[in-house]
């Protein structure tokens, strides 16, 4: 057997095998797995730290002493403020926007110190009872780690830009134990577009981080999912009411953040030292007054709400207090995430609305657990404005496809209401308050783009066939105002002929020859009406008149375009 007849695998030498494995794109994929592993490990440690802070600051029991409830968040707030002002100023906020900023402004650069600060301050804040969650900080920690690895490996600028979202997906997936939702959220809210190049890396990092997290903390979800089902289509009416209420609550919550945050930040600089402490004291008061459930991430209470362990009236009170506590925590500049509070509010609101509906309309409403679950998605869609993630998150967390209809109906309604009453999404509001101008993912998703059909005009001029003689083309050019003619040559395609080209052919004595034999250029590649207008820019430089053809019959002309018309259309875009 000669070398040429050997199978491919037999021809591989160790060196060629390594080269094949370590092609740059493949290397990046492998690197994504490592980013996932490191992020997963970091998130596991982060979870341990939060729990230890909670045990040592608030106590290990559930009946907490009022003194601890008041003192723990207050004193922790003082420490957090000092550290956030003097040591880790980048650690403030949720972390989502900082990751976006790394992608769009800082070429993927996030200082490692930010991860350390985020880790320490968020663990202290959440553990001491601030109404914040660990997901957004985990996202940022993952992004920071990825950025640090990328810098150490001196990755190219293009790869560096992509590496932060890869780490972000890993961090979020590990924190939320939901890889699909994490990938979707990062695509939907951080990157803003689907590209094959990044998707593989994001998925790999998310999956590997979840594997690591489950290795250490088990595969159980953050809350036990009750039996969820939709028995009758009429229940959709009840879920629509939940969507409506959730949408309004999202707007109130979002407006609260939008209005209060800048006011807190405008206060005298010395007040920054006390803002987290005062917020902590007020949250402690809420807890001491009978609602300790609002402290921390509150997953165990979401679990209890899903299993019908609170009355609907108390659930409504908890939702209200949680909004207040989260507003206080977030606008005071305490580092921590918005995911868990959003889910908490959604769960309480959902179970409350479900309970009230069940009391009033027992035949039209389902179990409170289902409502709580749908409610989470509703707030996610309405407040965080990530509609796709909100649907998939509920499906992934519940592992039950049967509730997709209520989820879609309620989430869509909440999203539309929130969008109508609060045009700017919360992440965009926060970005602008921070003085940054990052692309709005919501606007990107809904951005109108121009198509060929928006600029083309009907074909009015004379049209030549390939069989026509060159003389005919010369005659038409001489008679009319047309400087350019289109020629249809079957089956080759379309050509454009300028006055100069025709005159040259005539001068060469080819006047009697058919056009198809006289034409020597390549035909114009077909252009269709539904293609983006940007495509035309590749044509107009070479062909002054571009034919637009029918997709079903490429010999049928539906319009024509020139460079001037394309530019005029761009100039007018947005004015109409």
């Amino acid at each position, binding site marked *: 057997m000669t070398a040429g007849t050997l199978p491919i695998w037999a021809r591989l030498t160790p060196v060629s095998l390594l080269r094949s494995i370590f092609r740059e794109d493949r290397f990046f994929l492998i690197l994504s797995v490592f980013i996932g592993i490191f992020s997963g490990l970091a998130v596991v440690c982060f979870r341990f730290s939060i729990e230890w802070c909670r*045990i040592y600051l608030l106590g290990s029991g559930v009946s907490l002493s009022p003194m601890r409830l008041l003192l723990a968040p207050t004193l922790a707030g003082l420490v957090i403020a000092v550290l956030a002002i003097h040591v880790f100023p980048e650690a403030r906020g949720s972390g989502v926007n900082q990751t976006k900023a790394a992608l769009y402004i800082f070429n993927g650069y996030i200082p490692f110190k930010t991860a350390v600060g985020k880790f320490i301050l968020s663990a202290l804040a959440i553990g001491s009872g601030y109404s914040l969650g660990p997901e957004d900080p985990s996202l940022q920690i993952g992004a920071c780690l990825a950025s640090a690895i990328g810098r150490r490996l001196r990755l190219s600028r293009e790869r560096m830009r992509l590496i932060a979202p890869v780490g972000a997906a890993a961090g979020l997936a590990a924190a939320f134990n939901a890889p699909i939702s994490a990938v979707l959220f990062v695509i939907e809210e951080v990157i803003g577009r689907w590209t094959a190049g990044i998707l593989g890396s994001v998925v790999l990092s998310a999956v590997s981080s979840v594997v690591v997290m489950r290795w250490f903390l088990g595969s159980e979800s953050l809350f036990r999912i009750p039996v969820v089902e939709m028995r009758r289509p009429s229940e959709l009416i009840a879920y629509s009411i939940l969507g409506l209420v959730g949408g309004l609550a999202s707007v109130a919550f979002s407006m609260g953040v939008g209005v209060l945050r800048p006011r807190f930040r405008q206060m005298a600089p010395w007040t920054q030292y006390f803002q987290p402490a005062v917020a902590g004291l007020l949250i402690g008061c809420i807890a001491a007054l009978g609602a300790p459930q609002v402290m921390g991430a509150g997953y165990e209470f979401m679990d209890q709400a899903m299993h019908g362990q609170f009355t609907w009236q108390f659930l409504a009170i908890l939702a209200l207090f949680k909004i207040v506590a989260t507003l206080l925590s977030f606008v005071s500049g305490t580092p921590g995430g918005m995911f868990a509070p959003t889910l908490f509010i959604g769960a309480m609101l959902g179970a409350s609305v479900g309970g009230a509906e069940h009391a009033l309309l027992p035949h039209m409403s389902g179990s409170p657990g289902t409502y709580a679950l749908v409610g989470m998605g509703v707030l996610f869609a309405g407040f965080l404005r990530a509609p796709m993630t909100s649907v998939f998150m509920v499906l992934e967390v519940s592992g039950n496809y049967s509730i997709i209809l209520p989820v879609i109906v309620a989430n869509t309604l909440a999203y539309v209401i929130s969008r109508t009453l609060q045009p700017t999404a919360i992440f965009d509001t926060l970005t602008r308050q921070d003085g940054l101008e990052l692309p709005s993912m919501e606007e990107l998703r809904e951005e109108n783009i121009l198509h060929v059909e928006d600029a083309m005009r009907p074909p009015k001029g004379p049209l030549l066939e390939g069989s026509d003689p060159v003389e005919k083309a010369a005659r038409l050019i001489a008679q009319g105002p047309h400087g350019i003619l289109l020629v249809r040559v079957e089956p080759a395609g379309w050509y454009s002929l300028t006055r100069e080209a025709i005159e040259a052919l005539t001068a060469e004595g080819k006047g009697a020859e058919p056009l198809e034999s006289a034409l020597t250029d390549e035909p114009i590649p077909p252009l269709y009406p539904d293609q983006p207008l940007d495509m035309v820019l590749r044509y107009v430089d070479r062909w002054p008149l571009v034919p637009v053809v029918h997709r079903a019959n490429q010999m049928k002309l539906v319009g024509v375009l020139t460079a001037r018309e394309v530019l005029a259309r761009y100039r007018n875009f947005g004015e109409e």
Partner: protein
Amino acid sequence: MATGSKGLDFLRDRRHEPVTLALLTLLAIVMTLAVTGLSRIYHGQQEALAVRWSARGVEDLKQQRFGAAVGEFRAALRYARDNDSYQLNLAEALLGERKTDEAYAYLINLWDREPENGLVTLELARIAASRGQTTRALRFYHNAIYAIWPGNQEEETRKSRLELIDYLLGIGAKAQAQAELIALEANLPEESPLQAHLGGLFLKAGDNEHALAAFRLALREDRHDAVALAGAGTAAFEQGRYLAAERYLKEAVAAAPDDVDSAARLATTETVLGLDPFRPQISAATRDRMTVKAFSAAGDRIRTCPALSGQPPHGRPDLVQQWNNLKPRVTEYGLRRNPDLVNSAMQLTFNIEQQTSGWCGAVTEADNALLLIAKLHEEH
């Protein structure tokens, strides 16, 4: 700095990517080992806290300090969320606190995971019973009977069935209770207290025959069991077997002089036996004497009944007239001469007692006995 930069450039060189990945792998292993150490500390602490809070909860549950127990089991569950035992204990504490809805939520979750768990199913049956959800309660009780129980499976199954029977008797479903009792009887050991309890339940279900059989089994083991004696007496009495009833009740009263019910039932039995001329194995003279006595008691009933004074309403037989007509012939002499008169005299006596029982208020011991005799002979 230059050295460091050179080192980093080494990593950047694509020829050294395998080395880079090897270093990353090494780092991942080291970090994994470190996190494993932390994880052990973390999980150890969580486990210890769960055990500690659960132990406190169990102690408080035993002392019936349900409020404290609820908090403690909640804390235990915080560290061991899926521990079924803690959840069950919490549900019990919540039931003690009368937080039925919340307890139900925990129990139904446990039941979803372990539908064969007897303890959980029985608690769910109790909750359904307390909520008046009969169908659901019966379903859970039956599930509990055929569930898996820790410890003595047979005994727990028996207890569940006994509880179901109590529930059925409580809601007046005597036929269903009787069916369950027959199923219980087949698997019950012949221990005196158990058989006596079974007999009592049969009595409540109205199955006197099975009741008497159960009490007799109980007495086979302990002839002086006062409860079994009283139960057997009652069962025999209800069946109209007054001689047997008299025997059991006398022994019951002798064994438990404070048993007022048995004493009263014995008195009625003795009266019945003293007034029933149709009793087998009595002499003709005794029969005649009893007939006269019974007839005389019916006459007393007529005389003391205000509703019978004056003319009877249209359609009602004139019992006073009939009794007065028969009275001269109902003597011991008259009956001896005409034994067939016993039947006529007793028939009129029964008519008087049965009809006056609806109109004439409280009855005497003799009237009561005559009603029982009338019922007995109607049945036969």
